[in-house]
Structures are given as structure tokens and as C-alpha cells.
């Protein structure tokens, strides 16, 4: 009988081409490759930054030179040659656009292929999109509605000029320049990113959203995001990305800092779909990201991430629960296929009294990929009655992939309650046959099984993002044909 066997499925999984693997031909203004004080000064100059920012970058660069690349993660890759990367690239036809008609049609075409055209986005109720292509903001919408409430939502570049006091005070306050090798590198060379400030007591009326995208061949992407929620405010921030297919590895070392002051809440959702490399493990993005937030009294930070892309992912969105009664949450789905490697998780640092954290991690591995959860729950001596609940589930597809869990727990206060649960399961042939017998083909069967497995996390995403995330899960696992 000619049937769709597990071998066929595996073969098909391996041969799925990256759906978003197209390349937009936009003229770019790119700096020479390599890294030096001169380059850093040049980046700062190109961006017309004030002197304090240039100094800040140079200081980071000096510190970075003394650091070495971390190698404790459960990933193997050829270390990128940082002298072969260009640290600045911006579309050369840079002027601000008044309407979509003025935007480079090729760029619009790219958005259309991604299904996130600015056109569509504008119509999408309540979503403001600040599109970042190769480091420079191209279009920002809904700015007026936001500014009426006193909300600042702009590119980091712009914020450095228009709100230097806020940037100066908070940049590097959660992720210090010396935090780690890639955070230091980012501090020295960051290209652009998003800045967001929500004033006291303001509930941001819409989801703030930025789509990041690497575009130029051989260009590193060093985004810097800073979200500040003042006392009693609320914001939901969406970050989504997708990179075109490239043969050489691309480095993405972003830094995201969140500050939730007393009684504030920040919800930060990510869909990451950088190019994962081909079925032989060639190419793909190196995604080395530092994301961290700090909570004041009664504040809450919630990270939700759907990680389907990148050849190597190294990412631990964390919460510093400094204020009493503060809450940290981490909901994650990480999908790896072919030769992808992901080492991801979170750090929950309980410092204040009655702090609470929840970790739900779902890892899905297929092909020859390796998927690791690495998480730290730290309870400090003053964190009386703090609580943590962690759940780490792994789902395996096929026999050649791996799932690993590295939970670290440190408690310095006896009143802490910490719970950890972990499961590993495999998609069984019986489950697939059961679906087949009901008329559901194998591709669709895997999609619904994976959806069921990831449900607790998918449910945490804002509606429009959840749909996109589900689509991505299907694309990365069984590559929805046609």
C-alpha cells in the first residue's frame, strides 16, 4: 500500500522551504564591515546622536572587548566572525512618507508576502505598527491617538533626540552594558529599535506592535527596545519578525528592557520567525537576545513568546520581581526542526515579599533539532512567601531530535513555595492513525496535535497574534502546502 508513512513525513518536513524566503531589493546605505571605535563613532554620527550617547556606546565597546563569548548553552555552532559584519544599514531612500503611495512598492510587496502589509495593518482595529526594516523606521501609524494620551511610541533613535532624559535614565538600567557578551555588543552598536513610555495611570488603548525584519545580506541586526510603564499604567506590546532566506549566517543580538513601576502592567508578546537555515543546517539566523524586565510594587510583567525560527536561539526573557506583591509570567512555545537549536527559558528573580511567578514552557522538536529549556527560579533572603510554579512540556516528532530541561532553583528564604512539573511525549503513530481514520490527513493531524499541546500558551497571545502564531506553527512543522 502506498501510504503516508512517518518516513515520508520526515522527508517532507526536511524538504520544506522557508516560506518567507524572498529577498527585497532595496538600495541600502551600508557601513564598511567590521568593528572599531571609528565604526561606533560613525554609527552614532549617522544617527545624529548627542555626545552622551556616543560616549555610552564607546564605553560599552571598551567593556565588550574584555569579554568573551559565552559557551554554556546547549548549542553548537560556528562562532560568527564579528569583523565580517556590517553594523549599520538603512534604506537609502529614507525620507518620511506621508502616505503609503510614497513607500517603496517593493517594500509593500514584502509586507504582502508576509501577510502583514501596512495597508492591512492600518485597517486592523487598534493596532499601531512601527515597521523597522534594516534598522530604520519606515512608517509609524496611530501616533496621534497615542500622543493624546501622552503615550510616547517611537523609534529609539528618535527617542534619544526627543526624550533624552527618559532614555538616559533607563537605558541599561535593567540590562547593564556588561550583562553579557551580546548585550555589551548591542550596547555598542545598536542600530535602532522601539521606545515606549506610558504615563502614570494610563491604560494604552491599543496593542503596540513592531515588526522587525533583517533584510540586507551580511547585515547584523542589533535592536534595542525600551518599554517604560509608569505607575499604575498598562501596555500590551507585540513584537513579530520574519527574515528572508540568506545563505550566510546572520547575527541578531537584541536587547529588550521593560520597566513596570508600582502597580503597572506590561504584557510583551513575541512571534519569532527568523530564517532557520535549510534542511542541511546551512544558513539561518543566530538569535542571541537579552530580554529582561523589572517590577515595582504590585507590578506585573508577562512574557509570551512563540519561537519558530532561527538556526540558533539563545534567549531568556526574565523578570526581576523587586517590588512586593509583584508578578512575573513566562509563557513560551519553542519549535525546532531540521538542524535548528534552541536554548531558551527564563529567569524569575524574587527579591520582594509575596512575589509570584509562573513559567509555562512548551518545546516541540522535529527533524534533527535540539530543543532545551533552561530556567532559573531565584528566591532572595527578603522574598518572604514568594511562590513559583513551573511547567515544562516537551513534544517530540520522529526519533532523531532531542528535548532537554535544565531547571535551576535557588532559594534563600524558607517560606518560599516552588513547584516544578515536566513531561515529555511523542506524537504517536496511533494518534495520527486515529485522525486519519476520521478523514484528517497526517499534516493536519500533526497541526492539531501540536496546537492542542501548545494551547495554554497560544491562549495567552492577543487574538490577532494567536492566529499568526498558529499559522507559523503549521508552516515550521509541516509547511502548509499551497
Amino acid at each position, binding site marked *: *500500500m502506498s*501510504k*503516508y508513512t512517518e518516513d515520508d513525513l520526515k522527508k517532507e518536513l526536511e524538504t520544506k522551504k522557508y516560506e518567507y524566503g524572498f529577498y527585497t531589493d532595496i538600495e541600502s546605505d551600508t557601513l564598511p564591515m567590521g568593528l572599531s571605535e571609528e565604526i561606533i563613532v560613525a554609527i552614532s554620527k549617522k544617527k545624529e546622536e548627542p555626545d552622551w550617547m556616543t560616549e555610552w556606546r564607546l564605553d560599552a565597546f571598551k567593556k565588550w572587548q574584555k569579554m568573551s563569548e559565552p559557551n554554556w548553552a546547549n548549542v553548537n555552532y560556528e562562532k560568527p566572525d564579528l569583523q565580517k559584519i556590517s553594523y549599520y544599514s538603512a534604506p537609502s531612500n529614507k525620507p518620511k512618507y506621508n502616505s503609503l503611495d510614497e513607500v517603496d512598492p517593493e517594500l509593500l510587496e514584502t509586507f504582502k508576502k508576509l501577510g502583514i502589509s501596512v495597508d492591512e495593518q492600518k485597517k486592523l482595529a487598534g493596532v499601531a505598527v512601527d515597521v523597522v526594516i534594516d534598522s530604520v523606521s519606515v512608517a509609524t501609524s496611530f501616533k496621534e491617538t497615542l500622543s493624546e494620551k501622552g503615550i510616547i511610541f517611537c523609534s529609539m533613535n528618535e527617542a534619544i533626540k526627543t526624550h533624552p532624559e527618559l532614555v538616559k535614565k533607563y537605558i541599561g538600567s535593567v540590562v547593564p552594558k556588561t550583562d553579557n557578551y551580546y548585550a555589551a555588543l548591542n550596547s555598542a552598536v545598536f542600530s535602532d529599535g522601539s521606545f515606549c513610555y506610558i504615563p502614570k495611570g494610563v491604560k494604552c488603548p491599543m496593542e503596540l506592535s513592531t515588526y522587525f525584519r533583517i533584510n540586507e545580506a551580511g547585515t547584523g541586526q542589533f535592536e534595542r527596545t525600551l518599554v517604560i510603564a509608569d505607575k499604575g499604567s498598562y501596555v500590551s506590546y507585540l513584537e513579530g519578525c520574519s527574515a528572508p532566506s540568506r545563505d550566510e549566517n546572520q547575527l541578531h543580538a537584541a536587547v529588550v528592557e521593560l520597566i513596570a513601576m508600582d502597580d503597572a502592567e506590561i504584557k510583551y508578546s513575541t512571534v519569532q520567525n527568523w530564517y532557520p537555515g535549510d534542511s542541511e543546517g546551512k544558513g539561518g539566523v543566530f538569535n542571541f537576545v537579552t530580554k529582561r524586565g523589572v517590577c515595582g510594587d504590585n507590578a506585573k510583567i508577562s512574557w509570551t513568546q512563540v519561537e519558530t525560527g532561527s538556526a540558533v536561539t539563545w534567549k531568556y526573557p526574565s523578570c526581576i520581581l523587586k517590588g512586593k506583591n509583584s508578578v512575573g509570567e513566562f509563557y513560551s512555545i519553542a519549535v525546532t526542526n531540521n538542524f535548528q537549536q534552541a536554548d531558551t527559558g527564563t529567569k524569575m528573580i524574587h527579591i520582594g515579599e509575596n512575589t509570584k511567578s509562573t513559567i509555562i514552557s512548551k518545546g516541540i522538536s522535529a527533524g534533527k533539532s535540539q530543543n532545551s529549556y533552561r530556567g532559573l527560579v531565584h528566591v532572595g533572603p527578603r522574598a518572604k512567601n514568594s511562590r513559583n510554579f513551573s511547567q515544562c512540556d516537551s513534544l517530540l516528532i520522529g526519533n532523531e531530535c532531542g528535548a532537554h530541561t535544565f531547571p535551576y532553583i535557588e532559594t534563600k528564604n524558607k517560606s518560599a513555595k516552588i513547584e516544578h512539573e515536566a513531561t515529555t511525549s511523542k506524537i504517536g503513530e496511533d494518534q495520527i492513525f*486515529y*485522525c486519519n481514520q*476520521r*478523514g484528517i490527513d497526517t499534516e493536519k493531524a500533526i497541526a492539531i*496535535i501540536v496546537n492542542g499541546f501548545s494551547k*495554554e500558551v497560544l491562549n495567552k497571545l492577543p487574538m490577532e497574534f494567536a492566529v499568526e502564531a498558529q499559522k507559523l506553527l503549521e508552516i515550521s512543522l509541516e509547511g502548509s502546502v499551497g
Partner: protein
Amino acid sequence: MLKIKNLHAQVDDKDILKGIDLEIKAGEIHAIMGPNGSGKSTLASVITGKEEYEMTEGEILFENEELDEVSPEERAHKGIFMSFQYPIEIPGITTTNFIKTAINETRKARGQNDMSAKDMLKMLREKCDLLDIDQKFLSRSINEGFSGGEKKRNEIFQMAMLEPKLAILDETDSGLDIDALKIVANGVNKLKSEDNAVMVITHYQRLLDHIVPDYVHVLFDGKIVKSGGKELAFELEKKGYDWIKEEIK
């Protein structure tokens, strides 16, 4: 509707079915009985196209179409349904969502549009009433944490929703107490019509008190060794399978 001719089948290179001939027409109920290891469940798996089961000789025709090269999901689209002996759990997927996917995939294969939410809801309600199922049950993850009786009822519920032409009930009575058995049998009887057919696979006669077959076939060592009317089941119950073994010697 279903014609099986000289069917031979293997699992792991071991011959299990050794020449089966069987014809089931619309409107009929056939019971397949036999001792453990006689090949009953293998027969069901071969008809539904389970991967590890390899047909080595003979043919299976469903509505005059050879099934050998047809995938399991296409067989389902053609109207073949099996109630599993051990229904499978799929965590996180509600029964409603699962059935919705199954119905719409089948409709898609038949060139129809998705069933509207309104029609789906109406149908779910009707079938729940028909089978005396609490609607709350539909929001639970499919088969997860279900009792044996609930799982089998859920199978019959799916059968009601999918409206197959041929329903194969594989040991549907196993693990059921008498009340659950009656509910399940009652459901099958309500769904029975002149246009569909049922193949009941069972070890015991007790299910056949409630689902009364037109024909009974006794399977032994991969062959149908005796066929008859419903009275054959009573005889078997009385005399045991040893009687058959004696008779075929």
C-alpha cells in the same frame, strides 16, 4: 457495499489473514466473532488502511472501488468509519474541535465548503439528544481522562456526526458495563438505516442481544470458518469456540 475477496494480510511478516471472503450490502448488520488472535481486529485495520498491515493477496472493494492504494483518510472520506477498541487521547483538542476538523476535512475532500457554524451547532445538539449525551462533554479534550464507557460513547457520537456508509465497531463492548453497553447499542440502532451498513466485531454474544445482526461469521486462524444467521451467535455462546475448532478438524 463492501466486497472482500480472498484477502491475505501480514503484520511484521507474519500471516494473520489467510483468505477471507465477505460481502456486506447496504442495510445489513454483520457480526464477526472469534476467539482472541483469530484476526478480527486485523481485519478492521486492513479495511481502514492502517499502515503496519500489509495486504499480500486478494482485494477489498468498497462501492466497487479497490482500496489497496487508497490512504486511510481517503477511505474515511469515502464513508468508512471505525469505532476504535482503544480510542486515542489528544490532549488540548476539544471533542467539538476534533469533530469539526474531521467533518470539514471530509467535506473539503468531497469538494464541499466548510459546514457553517450554525449548522454544525444544530447537528451537535441533535446528535447529543439522540445519543443522550451531555453537551458539556463536548468541551473536554478528546478522550483525555474519559472513562471506558465515555470513550466508546464518544466513538459512537463521532459516528453519528460523520454519518458513514460503513461503520466498523471494533470490540465496542469491551470494558463496558451493561448500562453503558445498552446506551452504545441503542445509539447504533438509532443510526442504522437502509443506506448504511454495520460490521460488529466482538468476542462475546452479549452485544448482539442489543445490536441484532443479520449475519454472523466466525473467524478462526485468519479464515471465516462458519457463517450463519443470528442464531449462530447463541450456539457459539452455548458451546464455546472449542466446538468450532472440533468441527473444522
